[in-house]
């Protein structure tokens, strides 16, 4: 309330002037808007969030109607790693404040939507985010100005005709406009947004539900026990999220009707184009399904009796039984109405027409400086990854913020420089704990930029892989010596609406078959040069990236724990060694000592550790193990007894280094395409 007041005062103070200016304007105080506000606030930027409601998260105040969120709120993972735990927390926003973890708000695995509203209120207030409530932006237009960041300012007008001017506009309005279909008789259809949620109201009724998404099934689930039967109609076949690995498809928690349908308990699913449908109401108030085709050139007012019903010609027509109610649950779309034509904010094509057209950098295709965040940005990874959901867009929002920080404030993408000896470690660390890579698989990627001679590297986290070609321009980091891209992928031919995802031997266990892994697993792409935009455009369909110089799959793991020394780390190390023609093994100081006398060039671990007086002495027990493994020469015996021990177990150290000739194969052999 205090904040709203504060904003109100500021607003009124300048109300005499025509515009109130902010560098960043965010429309919508939902999860994405608040997440963006958090990063802007932490960076000390001049921003404001406009929210038409009196509180954040107004979508969640109404939806889902039956109040059960289907996003996972896992209390226990057996791990304390906060980053890792975010992989199984689909509701929290990113912040430094440990109080703002969703599991502190609800103990339910599928929490109540009211909790989300409360959480978002706390998020805004605890972090003191600047949100201007009760401000509905009703019009957005552009003002050309050469001085502006993008050559234009965004002019926003609210319901009270108050005007705001911004250099950058972040649209986080979600998709809240319900999809409707128009057909003869559609006036008899109730909408999901208003339909009763009290099962009592459906007792003994026969119900037809239009749509086949989670909202349709959620509605069906609620009344399944009291209705005569429920039929569901939609154009496409049902897509189950456990078969597609897409959280937007039908979740198992909602699919009770599938069970009753397949067990012939009167409920049913049908496929058909809703546009061809027509509904007529008889005198008893029952609703009959017919086809638009029959109604054409007919006087509608003539009454039900004159209208042909499909069962008149086909007496076993599936939906011949009359319905008491028809409910529309067809999802939502982006509100395009408030944007002036000059912004060229166009709907996408086909499946993604409910979303505005944006680039993989989340910037509008029509207007520079306009970024779409949150659910509305899902066109980038629709039906692929999690960008339309809190647990996905919290990361893409951070990525957009980092892009903006570099573009407008000269702050390069955060990175850490490590010596090359840490290469394997830094990859293993990230693939095991990073939540952004895991949730936004195939969309966000970690980038490793190699320094000259591969002695060091720079690590960039969670960069949008779709704009890899623009990396240098977007991040301010240079990639002249090649790069690794670390990304997570499902097996390419594994998931799909009609695929059997439970077939025998679906899981791969051996490292040499890692490329055939089906479940989410890390993949490392190696490029000698940054791919060009042309190469990005010509990449194979369904590939997140163009063909690399080399690729490595870390074999999928049942526990998603990729720290096994032989199955995970060793093959990865060999891959990195092959790419860089270097030796990334660790050595005890004793071996480095020997190398110092016998080799001109020391392995990086010796060079960067031992020679700089940070060698690994190792305890006696460990050195003994290394000797037993034949990997370390035994000098203690030589010293004490004076005669050499039998050469049975120890290969000489010199031999060891020579044997470790890195097989430099033509790199394309390392490229294993799953569909080849």
């Amino acid at each position, binding site marked *: 309330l205090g904040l709203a007041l504060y904003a109100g005062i500021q607003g009124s103070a300048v109300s005499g002037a025509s515009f109130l200016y902010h560098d960043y304007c965010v429309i919508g105080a939902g999860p994405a808007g608040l997440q963006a506000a958090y990063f802007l606030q932490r960076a000390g930027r001049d921003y404001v969030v406009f929210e038409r409601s009196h509180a954040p998260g107004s979508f969640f105040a109404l939806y889902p109607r039956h109040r059960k969120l289907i996003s996972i709120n896992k209390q226990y993972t057996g791990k*304390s790693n906060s980053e890792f735990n975010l992989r199984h927390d689909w509701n929290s926003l990113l912040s430094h404040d440990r109080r703002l973890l969703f599991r502190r708000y609800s103990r339910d695995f599928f929490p109540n939507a009211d909790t989300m509203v409360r959480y978002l209120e706390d998020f805004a207030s605890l972090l003191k985010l600047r949100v201007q409530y009760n401000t509905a932006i009703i019009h957005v237009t552009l003002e050309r100005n050469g001085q502006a960041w993008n050559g234009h300012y965004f002019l926003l007008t609210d319901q009270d005709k108050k005007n705001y001017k911004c250099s950058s506009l972040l649209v986080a309005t979600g998709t809240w406009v319900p999809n409707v279909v128009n057909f003869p008789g559609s006036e008899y259809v109730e909408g999901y947004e208003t339909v009763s949620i009290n099962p009592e109201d459906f007792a003994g009724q026969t119900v037809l539900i239009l749509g086949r998404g989670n909202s349709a099934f959620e509605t069906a689930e609620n009344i399944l026990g009291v209705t005569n039967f429920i039929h569901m109609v939609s154009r496409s076949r049902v897509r189950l999220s456990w078969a597609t690995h897409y959280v937007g498809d039908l979740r198992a928690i909602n699919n009770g009707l599938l069970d009753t349908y397949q067990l012939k308990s009167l409920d049913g699913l049908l496929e058909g184009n809703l546009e061809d449908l027509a509904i007529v109401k008889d005198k008893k108030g029952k609703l009959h399904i017919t086809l638009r085709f029959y109604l054409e050139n007919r006087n509608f007012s003539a009454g039900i009796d004159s209208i042909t019903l499909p069962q008149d010609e086909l007496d076993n027509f599936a939906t011949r039984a009359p319905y008491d109610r028809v409910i529309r649950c067809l999802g939502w779309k982006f509100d395009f109405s408030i944007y002036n034509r000059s912004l060229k904010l166009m709907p996408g094509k086909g499946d993604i027409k409910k979303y505005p057209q944006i680039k993989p950098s989340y910037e509008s295709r029509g207007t520079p400086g306009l970024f779409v965040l949150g659910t509305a940005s899902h066109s980038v990874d629709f039906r692929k990854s999690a960008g339309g959901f809190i647990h996905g867009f919290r990361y893409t929002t951070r990525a957009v913020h980092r892009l903006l920080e570099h573009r407008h404030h000269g702050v390069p993408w955060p990175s850490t420089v490590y010596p090359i000896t840490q290469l394997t470690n830094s990859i293993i660390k990230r693939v095991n704990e990073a939540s952004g890579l895991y949730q936004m698989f195939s969309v966000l990627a970690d980038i490793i930029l190699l320094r000259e001679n591969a002695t060091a590297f720079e690590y960039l986290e969670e960069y949008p892989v779709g704009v890899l070609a623009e990396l240098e321009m977007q991040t301010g980091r240079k990639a002249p010596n090649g790069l690794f891209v670390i990304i997570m992928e499902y097996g390419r031919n594994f998931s799909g609406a009609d695929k059997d995802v439970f077939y025998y031997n679906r899981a791969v266990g051996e490292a040499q078959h890692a490329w055939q892994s089906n479940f989410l697993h890390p993949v490392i792409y190696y490029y000698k040069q940054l791919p060009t935009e042309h190469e990005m455009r010509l990449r194979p369909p369904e590939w997140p990236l163009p063909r690399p110089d080399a690729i490595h799959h870390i074999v999928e793991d049942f526990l998603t724990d990729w720290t096994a020394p032989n199955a995970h780390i060793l093959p990865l190390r060999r891959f990195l060694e092959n790419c860089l023609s270097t030796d990334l093994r660790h050595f005890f100081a004793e071996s480095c000592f020997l190398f110092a006398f016998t080799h001109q060039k020391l392995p990086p671990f010796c060079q960067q550790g031992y020679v700089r007086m940070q060698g690994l002495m190792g305890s006696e027990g460990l050195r003994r193990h290394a000797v037993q493994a034949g990997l370390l020469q035994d000098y203690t015996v030589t*010293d004490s007894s004076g005669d050499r021990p039998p050469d049975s177990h120890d290969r000489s150290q010199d031999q060891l280094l020579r044997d470790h000739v890195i097989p430099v194969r033509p790199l394309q052999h390392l490229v294993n395409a799953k569909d080849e």
Partner: protein
Amino acid sequence: MPAHEDRWVSSFVFLLFCASSIPVWGSVGLLQEPSPQSYFSSLEAGRASLAFFTPHVSPGAQPFLEQIESSAQALQDYGISVVKVNCPKEDISRYCGKDNVLRKAYLFRGNILIREFPTDALFDVNSIVANVLFALLFNEVKYVQTLADLQNIENALKGKSNMVFAYVPATGTAEHRAVMEAAFVYGTIHQFVLTTEAALLESTGNDDPDVSSAWLLFCHCQRATDPAQPCRRTALGQPLTLLNIHRHLKLMGAPLVTEVAEDPEKVSTVHLQLGLPLVFILSQKDTYEADRRTAEFVAWQLLGKAGVALLSRDLVDLNVLHRSNVALKTPDEGLPIQYLALEDTDEVITLVEDKNKVKQIQEEEEEEEEEDEKENNNQDIQDDQVVEAVSRDKKRELPLEQILVLTEDTFHSSLSEAARTVVLFYASWEAVSLAVLRSYSEVADHLKGTPGVLLSRVNCWDWPGICSQENVTQFPTIKIYGKGEQSVTYDGMWGTEELTSFIILSRFSCPLRLATRDEAEGYLRGEFPSELSSYHHTSLLGVFSSATSEAQEAFEEAGNILSGHVRMGMYFEDDALALSHKYSVSPPALLLARNRGRSVEGISLSKQSVQDMVQMIRYELLDIFPEITVQNLPQYLQLTKPFLILFSDGAISQMESQEMLKLAKGRPQQTFVACWLNL
């Protein structure tokens, strides 16, 4: 296969036996030693004998005698006797009397002298047999030197008999002997032609002849009808040995195409006996002529590699597919005949040739597979000594009771508990971290009961928040947190001793401010502070008068940098001057006390910058003639000077040490590092 080989070997032996069973002299193989008279009188017409005349055994002729004795048996096989004739002393006849006694051997047929050989041409059994037979078979084996000669012979033979043309790089060789021995048997059937001219080899259409190895061609001149065309040739694809030549000639002598009218299972030809496959061309009455032509064509292609038979399906009731047109019978017993439907003659030829190749390839493939497997195995084998050592040790439970486990919740509160908290930041999955953790547990053991020091650890895999907050980007990292001080990151060797010493030294401020002269003296002797007395460090004392504050500040800065690695003290009381004069320097100065104060070196401080000071202190702490060890090598490497190393098996002697010291000290400013290494 071996059975067949035996069979044809035995048949050849039998042949030789026939050849050699012409009665000779009565007894076989032994040298006769008759007198010249009895020798000449015993010569029978048509009988060949090789004789050499010897008055008495001279030692120089011994090798020749040995060779000729061992060749006697071989020549005996060809009905040639070897005779040693004893010349009486007074005999000065043609053979006995001349100087050429024992320099020459004589070949007689009957009592006609055919050839006399200088003994140096008869250097071994091969050359003796080859040359003797060459001389005897003068008519049977034509020696040619020019292409024209060869063509003349070839043309003369056309339509009459076949020719065997052999090239040997030199006469008297094993190959030459093999050819001659074959000529002895086959000389009446085929015309043998021999050359040593490499030029002739090229003219035989052999593209890249290897002139260093012998070569044999069978020229089918008997069938040649066109006088303009050279005879068809079939080369012997194997090394020239008697057996191979014999086998080759036998194959050439076999009919080109055998017509069979019985069950192929029962058919046996010379090819099968010699271990070669037999190809059946399945024929029908209607296509007989064409089939016959095909068979002949194939037979020519496969000559020497396989036999070809024409099998009439009309005569034999074959229980095979009608479209089968070729059958292959291999010499391996027990293998069934393969019936095949092939498209053209090339396929027949490749069928046979590949049969041989397939075997080779299979063997090679097997080898390759093994290699692949090996390679794969290599790929799977852990070759990282640290990772392997740690994983071998993972079942052992570490004694970590002394080390406090810190979490996100306890981290900050724990830091305020002890005067000094040592924190190991590590990742529980990372090998080097785990290796250091083992050393760290040993450190904890050493430091048990040391007051004011708390050892603790943070697993960054569990608590990434603390680690990034404490700016830990690499594993492992050790930081020492002192109350109200900035944390110090450990940058020394990851070893128990080094870490223990670092923690101990870190307990005291660096440099340690000494208040009294007694303390300063005690410090130099290593007795003060008493907690450090059991550690043998070189002590470094900075002595300053009040006027030298600048040098003193630099010294204090240097102390901060070297904290934990060097034992540094500082004294700037009123009597600092007196203390320094005792070691004949004046403040600002460094006193360097080695061996518990037994030798104290005074060094005047002239350099003022902190970096220089640090550099100098590090340098001064190095030994002049050190033993190079794993621990101290990096320190000396940092001097970036060449090493002069005395390698020693065991400790070095006093004398060696003195000599080297002289050498090390003698050079101005040490252009190299003199050191020794215990092997």
